[in-house]
């Protein structure tokens, strides 16, 4: 009924472009309305930084924040509309939008969602407003530019998920990078400049390799265009195995770096340490692994099925699960713990993707979802502690269960979901990954299972230190540590709203994941089929590969 009503408005024709343009419009509004008229440009330093008059400061922070929240809620409403009109039984692209862009190269602004994109779009659209509401007070420096950039970032992330054109995908992919760079660099804390630079340079290295691969792929596919389905079909016969492998590695470099695949992860803890809370949450939306499923697998099936490459990728992923978990268990800081937990979770995602069964791919998608939710919630919790005490170091807290009961409940729920307790979202995904991967890679899957146990170790350890251990004596170097902990107030209404939303998502996905799974099933099967049908026996590929004369140029 609701569906017919929305379909009657022609929603499917404009909802995707609206999802992309609405946040940009919002960003422009935030900048226009919130920046105080800086006529006195020479003295503009204090314009939106805290200094002096309390009232003006509150105003300059509040306006962009409220506006950005409103825009993000609008985005979420649009996404809910998309969810409503989406036909869960069809495995094809829906709500398609197509516009010529650069005819000379065949590039089009071509958008569409299938079940996989839909799920990620929903995650982004719902997570971003909750993250902003849950970290209401965490951005103090330059709030107008911060929230404008956050909105631009939302467009970039959405674009990655709905792009059907490789060139447009690449533009959105890089659009994620720029706002994040400035958000960390301008509004972050600590070593923000170094952290943002590291993030940018490492990500650019990967992105440019992917760009070169896209150019080569476009040439190999006949230079007709960048449509993903046509490129998959056209590139299949046009490339030798060795070409496929090189181009696959170009894509994989970018995607793996952006998703903080061990051992390319070191930028992530640095960035999430320095980033304001909502930016750290946004970093947990895994555009990289989505790109692996959407692009790297179906475009380069022979490379993805190559036993050597596959076992290497999966082996390193499993190593990453254990490494992330072990390093997380010795982190002295809640944020860094969450970052390494993220590295560990990412290992499960990659394991699920390259195990290449329908179950494991669905599991990988679910882990991406619940990773965004659970670790996002963990960052919000860390941010709440930081807002109150200026730190999220674990040993600065203790016995919070008594002083902050509501906070404690929320943290327990979040930690349990992050460690994959049955009945929470974390369990379903990891279970499906392990189930699906066990068929193809039993040994590595068993090792990966250890990661689940280690997750319990580090998360329960953190819970115990923060919530239940008796409060520490004030240490000599931080004489007021004790009193600061005591003065802390429990959750306010906004934080409570955000964490309640997280809890609902955690329980809902844990108890009834069927609506999500059903929507992903068709596309997942299609991708598995595409990859399996593109397999080339090695002997044949060796014969097919043209033997080239040695180049003159080294």
């Amino acid at each position, binding site marked *: 009924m609701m569906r017919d009503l929305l379909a009657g408005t022609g929603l499917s024709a404009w909802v995707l472009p609206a999802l992309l343009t609405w946040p940009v419009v919002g960003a422009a509004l935030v900048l226009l309305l919130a920046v105080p008229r800086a006529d006195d440009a020479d003295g503009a330093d204090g314009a939106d930084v805290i200094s002096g008059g309390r009232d003006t400061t509150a105003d300059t922070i509040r306006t962009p924040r409220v506006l950005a929240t409103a825009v993000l809620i609008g985005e979420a409403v649009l996404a809910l509309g998309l969810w409503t009109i989406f036909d869960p039984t069809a495995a094809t692209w829906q709500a398609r939008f197509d516009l010529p862009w650069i005819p000379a190269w065949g590039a089009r602004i071509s958008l569409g969602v299938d079940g996989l994109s839909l799920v990620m779009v929903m995650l982004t659209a719902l997570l971003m407003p909750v993250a902003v509401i849950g970290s209401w007070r965490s951005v103090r420096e330059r709030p107008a530019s911060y929230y404008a950039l956050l909105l631009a970032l939302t467009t970039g992330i959405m674009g990655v998920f709905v792009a059907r054109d490789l060139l447009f995908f690449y533009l959105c992919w890089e659009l994620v990078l*720029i706002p994040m760079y400035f958000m960390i660099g301008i509004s972050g804390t600590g070593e923000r400049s170094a952290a943002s630079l590291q993030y940018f340079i490492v990500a650019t290295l990967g992105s440019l390799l992917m760009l070169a691969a896209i150019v080569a792929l476009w040439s190999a596919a006949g230079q007709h265009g960048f449509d993903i389905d046509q490129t998959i079909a056209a590139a299949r016969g046009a490339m030798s195995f060795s070409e496929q492998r090189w181009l696959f590695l170009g894509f994989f470099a970018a995607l793996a770096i952006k998703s903080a695949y061990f051992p390319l992860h070191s930028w992530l803890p640095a960035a999430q340490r320095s980033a304001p809370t909502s930016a750290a949450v946004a970093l947990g939306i895994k555009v990289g692994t989505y790109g692996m499923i959407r692009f790297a697998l179906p475009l380069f099936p022979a490379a993805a099925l190559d036993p050597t490459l596959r076992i290497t990728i999966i082996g390193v992923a499993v190593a990453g699960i254990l490494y992330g978990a072990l390093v997380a268990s010795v982190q002295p800081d809640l944020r860094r713990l969450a970052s390494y937990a993220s590295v560990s979770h990412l290992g499960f995602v990659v394991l699920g993707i390259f195990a290449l069964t329908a179950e494991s791919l669905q599991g990988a998608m679910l882990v991406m979802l619940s990773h965004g939710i659970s670790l996002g919630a963990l960052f919000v919790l860390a941010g709440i502690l930081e807002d109150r005490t200026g730190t999220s170091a674990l040993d600065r807290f203790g016995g919070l269960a008594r002083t902050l009961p509501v906070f404690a409940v929320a943290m327990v729920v979040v930690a349990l979901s992050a460690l994959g307790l049955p009945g929470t979202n974390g369990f379903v995904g990891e279970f499906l990954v392990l189930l699906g991967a066990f068929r193809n890679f039993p040994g590595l899957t068993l090792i990966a299972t250890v990661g689940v146990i280690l997750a319990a170790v580090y998360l329960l350890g953190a819970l115990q230190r923060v919530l239940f251990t008796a409060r520490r004596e004030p240490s000599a170097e931080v004489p007021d540590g004790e009193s600061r902990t005591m003065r802390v107030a429990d959750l306010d209404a906004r934080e409570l709203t955000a964490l309640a939303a997280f809890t609902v998502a955690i329980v809902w996905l844990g108890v009834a994941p069927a609506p999500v799974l059903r929507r992903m099933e068709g596309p997942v099967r299609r991708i598995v089929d595409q990859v399996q049908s593109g397999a080339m026996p090695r002997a044949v590929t060796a014969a097919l590969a043209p033997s080239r004369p040695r180049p003159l140029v080294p």
Partner: protein
Amino acid sequence: MNGTLTGFSTAALLPDLVVGVGALLLLLWSAARRDDDIDASRGAALGVVGVCAAALVAVVLLATGRVVPAPVPGIATDGFRWGIDAVILVGAALSALLAGDDARGRGMAQPEAFALVLLSVSGMLLLAAARDLILVFLGIELMSIPVYVLAGINRRSARSAEAALKYFLLGAFSTAFLLYGVALIYGATGATDVDAIAQAVAGAPGALPPVVLWLGIGAVMVGLGFKVGAVPFHMWTPDVYEGAPTPYTAFMAAGVKAAAFAAFARVLVEGMGGEVERWHPMLWWIAVVTMFGGNLVALTQRSVKRMLAYSSIAHAGYLLVAIVSNSALGSSALVFYLAAYTFATVGAFAVVQALGGTPEGDAIERWNGLFRVRPQLAVAMAVFMLALLGFPIAGGMGFFAKWYVLQAALAPVAPQLPQSRIAILLVLASVISAGYYLNIVARMFMRGRDADAPPVAPAPAWTRVVIGTCAVVLLVLGVYPTPAVQAAQSAALRPAMRTRGNRTVSAPSTAVSHLARGIRDSSVAVLP
């Protein structure tokens, strides 16, 4: 209105004539100004803009076929020329606006300088048109000699004089190489006309003394390599860029480079395309060394102008990659890249000027916290830096420029010359360049203003116009590049090629080249 002019005998040189006449008129006008009239510079700058605009109209009329020129031997009338002309004229007009503000700011009345700008522009236009090595030489000289003077135009600055002298000495040295190369090529092929050379190269493989031809190509490459600032012929670039007044640095970085690259592409791709195996390895290495040399040294610079100088060297390397690909696609990429590079680099130098540099004052520390005092300048500079880096959206057109060059680089030159390595090297060099471009961005946005930093005066009006224009053009064409791509596609050269076994030249289809082939003997006779 919609009638086309045909057979108009001087039409092929219309833009050049407009600029040349404009230069002479401007010279007369400036002779009539009083020495203490400090507004004369701005008037003259407006004159340059007007002349460039008029010439641009002529270029557009010619490029769109409204005016069909009668063929002139040795003068190209192809899309490549119109594309390069447009880039040169826009770059010159923007630099002239900067120079107007600059001269006024220094309280010097130098309207003559603007006549020199126009004279140099006419040399650049000649270079873009030249299909004859003698004309290339004339174009280089006509372009360079006024620029030597412009580099030293700030007569109160010793560094400016030093820059002028260095540029002059090394420029003369490189011209000698070029001339020597022209002579050797003439000796080997009996021609100075590009088509005649292409035919000679393709037609009679056994008859040519290969060493002489090889030496000739090498010497021409050295001569042009100096002009575009390719490693290892780049030594003059940082000193000259740093010492020259900033507007003329922008003029050199944009216009001189575009014109020299046009000649480079024409001689190598159109003339020697059939001999690609002979020059390809050498140019391949020059391109690689230039990309890495420029970027690595730029990382270590403490002066923003020097950093931009090394960055321009690195960009010469990327542009050489487009030439190395020896294809129509490569020449389209060259034009597109030069357009994007012109807007980005002129914009960047405009911001440098807006910051008000004393000669030793463009230290990188002065950029700290710029966002807090001059947010618009900082945002514009970030756009220019990201455009030079080749980053999409925020860097606008710069991304598509890099995309275009990559596209050209990945197309195989010849079956035996695979190109994928140079594409990967280009990518890696670009990653290195992120180190210094982002250094500026990070300083502007992520640091506080130093306590002892000098105040930044509001930029003069024209400088603001230049900065705004460059940023807006880059951003708009970064989202919707289609018009620029179409223009670049029509600005392709036709490389001389050999078919397998049987060597033939692909027939150039412009009226001029047909004629030029017909009168090859007479054009050869130009030389003695």
